[in-house]
């Protein structure tokens, strides 16, 4: 009778014994291991090419699923950069009473410049205002049809505090304080709608995040399902490999690489879609920008973001494949 060995110890012993028995006959080394991985990487890619239509369909589904949040991200990025520019220019605009004389307005301007909360005051006379409007696209005809200048003197007060959501209340206080000046007919803080925009943006951001999460899950499922079918179609191969002593890791490897390729190629096509989409909307977008005379430049997917997109999609591909393969190869045994 054999002695009753410690279970765990015996397992390790027996693995070691068999591994040693093997390695004494064929030496294991690292370069061989990498060569094997490289071979599997190439082989799995060629396997995708073997079924070009089916592979392409899966890749395009992944690409479309990824390009949706990617495209929204680019849109959001552009809106964000527009609002960033506006934030810098944000001022309290004071519209003075039309009957006010230039000297009185200048006096007010000096008085306000002295305030601690005010960085500078820009004085815009009636004539300057008119010229500004004349220069502005779309207003020329209206302005030239006027008999007299209807514009008031305007003071552009630039507060010391920059505008963001946190400083908004104190800026509103400043605006109210400026509005009480007797020369001022109306005071406007354009940060108000900036805040509304910021709220819309953060709503948009969350919307894009949620959509991204959903679509990344969709990519998981697409890859998982495709890999599951690939395992199923190679069931016999998996069975035989298991019978001749392939480890789970060995059997898993080609499927993981397959998932990797699906992910990378899906990500690549998604990036292409986004670049193509950006190019397609760039002409009308640039006309729009010109109209607003903004120095803003249309942004698209940059290199970093393409790399990030590929990394995420490759990761999702591999993990999706891993889950699908693990669930299925365990069930494949000789009946």
């Amino acid at each position, binding site marked *: 009778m054999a002695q009753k060995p410690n279970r765990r110890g015996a397992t390790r012993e027996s*693995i070691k014994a068999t591994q040693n028995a093997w390695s004494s006959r064929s030496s294991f080394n690292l370069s061989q291991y990498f060569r094997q991985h490289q071979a599997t990487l190439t082989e799995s890619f060629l396997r995708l090419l073997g079924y070009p239509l089916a592979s392409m369909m899966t890749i395009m589904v992944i690409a479309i699923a990824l390009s949706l949040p990617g495209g929204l991200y680019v849109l959001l990025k552009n809106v964000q950069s527009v609002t960033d520019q506006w934030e810098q220019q944000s001022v309290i605009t004071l519209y003075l009473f039309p009957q006010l004389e230039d000297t009185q307005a200048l006096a007010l301007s000096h008085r306000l410049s002295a305030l601690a909360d005010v960085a500078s005051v820009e004085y815009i006379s009636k004539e300057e205002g008119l010229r500004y409007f004349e220069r502005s696209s779309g207003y020329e005809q209206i302005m030239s049809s006027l008999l007299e200048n209807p514009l008031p003197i305007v003071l552009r007060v630039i507060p010391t505090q920059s505008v963001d959501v946190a400083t908004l209340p104190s800026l509103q206080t400043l605006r109210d304080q400026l509005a009480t000046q007797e020369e001022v007919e109306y005071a406007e803080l354009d940060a108000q709608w900036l805040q509304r925009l910021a709220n819309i943006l953060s709503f948009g951001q969350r919307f894009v995040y949620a959509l991204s999460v959903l679509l990344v899950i969709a990519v998981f499922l697409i890859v998982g399902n495709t890999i599951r079918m690939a395992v199923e179609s190679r069931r016999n191969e998996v069975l035989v490999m298991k*019978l001749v*002593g392939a*480890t789970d890791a060995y059997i898993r490897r080609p499927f993981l690489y397959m998932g990797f390729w699906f992910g990378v190629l899906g990500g690549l096509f998604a990036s292409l879609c986004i670049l193509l989409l950006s190019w397609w909307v760039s002409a009308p977008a640039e006309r729009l920008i010109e109209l607003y005379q903004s120095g803003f430049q249309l942004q698209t997917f940059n290199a970093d973001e393409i790399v990030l997109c590929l990394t995420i999609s490759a990761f999702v591909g591999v993990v999706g494949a891993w889950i699908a393969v693990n669930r299925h190869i365990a069930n494949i045994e000789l009946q």
Partner: protein
Amino acid sequence: MDIEFQRVGKKYESGQDALSQVSFHLRRGEMAFLTGHSGAGKSTLMKLMMMIERQTSGQILIDGVDLRTMGRRAIPFHRRRVGVVFQNHQLLLDRSVFHNVALPLQVSGADPLQIAKRVRAALDKVGLLDKEKYYPMALSGGEQQRVGIARAVVNKPQLLLADEPTGNLDPKLSAEIMNLFQEFNRVGVTVLVASHDLGLVARMRHRVLTLSQGRMVNDGGFG
């Protein structure tokens, strides 16, 4: 490889007893036949040795190690020590003879040059050296079975199991296949062949284990 079954039982979840109280000892370098009607438990016994299934009672000792102590992770390494030949040969039809035979070496990460050398040696032993580029479908039944045998012996296993290896072959081919097993046994491999061809088994003059309804009813010479 030394194999010892001690009152081994296998009960399926359906409640059916595939094996019960099976005991025998197959010593290192021994050759034996396993006979019995279909459904007597021959395949189940082979599956237990390959750890495709686990026994529900008793002990199986392989070279003194209790198979119950081997976890899932140890199974592939155990199988690399065991060569198996199946009735339906289990060849991969989309790979050439060479690549079918190379499979056990590939999965254990052998060096490509080594693989080529060993595959050709195995094919030479079964007389198919000139067919390495063929695909299995282009071969006759006997040739396919010999490819299966080459694959089973290519990594020099310590135990060779064959489950009805001559099931679909005519008597002449069957005898050839059996002679091959005998040759492997002569160089020290432990061999166990399951077969219901009692005439053939008797002619081979080796130890015969007979199963009937999951029980070992005979363990002796020559059927």
